[in-house]
């Protein structure tokens, strides 16, 4: 144990000598608790907004929950998974992997959104735009 690691010579090993302080875990944890409570309040909040259609209420529910989940995910990845204190290589890994997942979702939805089923007498696009947010 005494032959401890020397100061890292490369950027990638930056994370090795950094110890996340207890305060960080607790503060970020508090932030996560607050955001979780907000996500529990979303359905009630949307009910109080008195929107005019189910689709609008549903879409807004989805947007709010997604935004909250993304904030939580960023906090967890940056602080709990230590990525903020890592070298550029690992950060690049992360961004590329996430980018690939986003592309997979995008391409699938390009297909789904513009697919027209001969059994339906209209395409999905006017339906989509009709009640999207109001």
């Amino acid at each position, binding site marked *: 144990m005494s032959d401890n*690691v020397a100061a890292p010579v490369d950027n990638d090993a930056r994370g090795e000598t950094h110890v996340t302080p207890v305060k960080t875990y607790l503060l970020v*944890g508090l932030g996560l608790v607050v955001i979780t409570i907000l*996500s529990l309040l979303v359905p*009630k909040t949307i*009910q109080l907004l008195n929107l005019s259609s189910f689709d609008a209420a549903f879409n807004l529910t989805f947007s709010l929950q997604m935004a909250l989940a993304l904030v939580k995910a960023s906090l*967890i990845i940056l602080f*709990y998974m230590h990525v903020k204190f890592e070298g550029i290589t690992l950060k690049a*890994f992360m961004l590329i992997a996430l980018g690939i997942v986003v592309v997979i*979702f995008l391409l699938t939805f390009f297909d789904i959104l513009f697919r027209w089923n001969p059994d339906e007498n209209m395409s999905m696009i006017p339906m989509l735009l009709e009640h999207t947010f109001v």
Partner: protein
Amino acid sequence: MSDMTLQGGASASHAASDHHDTYDYVGSKMGIWLFLFTEVLLFGGLFLLLAVYWFKYPEQFAYGSAQLKHSWGAVNTFVLLISSITIGLSLTSFKRGKLSAAQRYLVLTILLSVLFMVIKFVEWIPKFQDGIYPGSSELVEKYGAVHDESGALLQRDQGVIMFYGLYFIMTGLHGVHVIVGAILMGWMIYQIRTQMVTPARFVRLENVGLYWDLVHLVWVFLFPFFYFMFVLAPPDAGFSLPAIGGHH
């Protein structure tokens, strides 16, 4: 090193330092991240299914979401949140040389993961008893078919069946990951006690922590998109919720 007379305690550190040449902090860490990316693709594919069928059956998915046990789901979210903190504190105390504190935090994390699984079964068993499980004929009968007055089949309303199918598969797969995480943490306690993991060579513990953080991360997305995607009808009756299911 090779000509020492070894005693019990010393042999453990001798064995550990034999591994010294293969200890690669950067390589090990990149390895676990590559594995975590495959996990992201695994759950990502399932989330893609969820997104597509959700888009196709919004009313049915909102209806299914309203039927889940929200309080238990919320409790589970906080359980995993705290367990993420405790495993982080385990790593921090371990890096600072506090071995028994690190082990205590690991035990705490394992207990929290057991609590998570207990709550999950508290949610699932009533569903099974209500006839809601993958392949259930009662589920198909209640939601799968819509008949007109003469008994002819009008449509197969698959949305609720899809919702429950995805619910059990995704939360079930996540539960398997929780169990695996608990086993890994138990293994880490053993490795700390036998000095296979030390504050100078801690990457294995850190990697288990990263795996557990990913399990938490998946739940961060699972929870709102299954449990809290329901819509409450507005008080002034701006719209009413669509009717779901052929006959109840």
